[in-house]
């Protein structure tokens, strides 16, 4: 009996502990809150592992001849961060932006959509996704004799040929003479 009166009296003295949020714009947000998925267009290779692991089927990847588009629909995303976990390029991250309320008209417009354009191969001219320099540096960390900028500009099959030529001691294929007919 006296216990709850004491608690009530203390509450009365201490005043409200309410967060003034909807009346003022800012509120407390944890740094690691899983709020919204963002894709880094510089890193995404379009491998599709995120689409494969997505629990809610919120991710779609459309591949075209000269580009690919990764689309994440926030209205289906359950913020489980499995895509972030499995992305080999660490291209997907979750930002602590939880302002997700939107009117019904915008239902199909709350998207994270990135289109990644392809570059033509310097040797054969085939459209290909250029590997980011940082990744390439990591891949060729023990091969100091390779010109990374050159490797970056050619497609995987051309890279194989290049490698074979180098092993055989032949000069590299001339970039001026593409092997594909115009």
């Amino acid at each position, binding site marked *: 009996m006296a216990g709850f*009166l004491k608690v009530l009296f203390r*509450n*009365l003295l201490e*005043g*409200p*502990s*309410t967060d003034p949020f909807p009346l003022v714009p800012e509120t407390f947000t944890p740094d690691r809150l899983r709020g919204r998925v963002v894709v880094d267009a510089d890193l995404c290779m379009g491998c599709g592992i995120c689409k494969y692991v997505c629990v809610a089927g919120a991710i779609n990847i459309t591949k075209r001849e000269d580009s690919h588009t990764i689309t994440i629909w926030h209205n289906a995303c359950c913020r489980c961060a499995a895509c972030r976990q499995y992305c080999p390029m660490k291209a997907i991250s979750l930002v602590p932006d939880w302002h997700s309320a939107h009117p019904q008209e915008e239902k199909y417009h709350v998207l994270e959509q990135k289109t990644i354009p392809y570059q033509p191969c310097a040797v054969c001219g085939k459209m290909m996704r250029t590997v980011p320099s940082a990744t390439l540096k990591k891949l060729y960390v023990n091969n100091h004799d390779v010109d990374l900028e050159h490797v970056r500009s050619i497609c995987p099959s051309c890279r194989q040929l290049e490698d074979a030529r180098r092993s055989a001691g032949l000069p590299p294929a001339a970039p001026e003479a593409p092997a594909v007919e115009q």
Partner: protein
Amino acid sequence: MDTLLGILHMCIFPGGIFALVIGFFFKGLDRRVEARLQRRVGPPLIQPWLDTAKLLTKETLIPKTACTQAFLLAPVVGFAGMAVCAAFIPVPGVFDGLSNMGDLLVLFYLLPIPAIAMMMGGSASSSPFGAVGFSREMIIMLAYETPLLMILLSVAMLVGKSMSGGDWGAEFSLLKIVEWQQVNGSLGYNPVMIPAFIAYLIFLPGTMGVAPFDIPEAETEVVEGPLLEYGGPLLALFHVGSALKTFVVLGLGVAMFFPGTIGDFWLVNLIWFVVKCLVLMLISLTVVKSATGRYRIDQAFRFFILVPTMLALCSLLLVWLI
């Protein structure tokens, strides 16, 4: 002329508009203080007015299987009963009450009208939850009317015995009770009446239907019971009736136990009356409401029969013996 004056008293002061303003102010303050006690901010003070405004703009739905007349009439009955009731409350130093004869008994008969209206509405709504709410309302009403009768009787007998010079007697005029107390000291300070006053403090949450006695309108158990099918203006009328009832029961408590006045100026006395009502409400309704859960109906019934009835009986016996 008297009739006209009576109607005026029922409509403007102290019934009707005045009681409504005070009742809504009390309800808003009640919610605000309750929020503060729970370390929240709470709604603005005018929230009851806003709620009523909102309910008036909503559409009215009447269940297909309901008894339409009774369903529509119930909130009106509750509201009208309380508006009349408020006119009987004497505001010491300002207003003498509408009737000077036996109004304590009239009040005793009028006070259960909102509960009866709620039962009527609940049973007319043809909803099973309404029926459960009806039976619960009935049980709790029987439980809290018993101590109320004993409290009223002990007050009436104490004053009546004193006025008739120690003989057997009972005074049922609220005005005479108030006047007697202004001469002989308030009943709330009388040791004989303290058990009755405590019983009245317990009766208040029971009759107002707030925790821990909000069993008939328990929203988590019987989805607001008798009020389930009401919406829009009809529900607003129930809320207005409840606000009037707040004023009536608190005013009755002040008139019976602490009717003292300060000075002769009517405005000061009016404010003093409102302040006393407010203190009574904070003690008996707000603090209890913000700290307790809900009783089961059988627990509430047993509690009412054991504690307030025994306390009131105690007072009654003391008055009878002394």
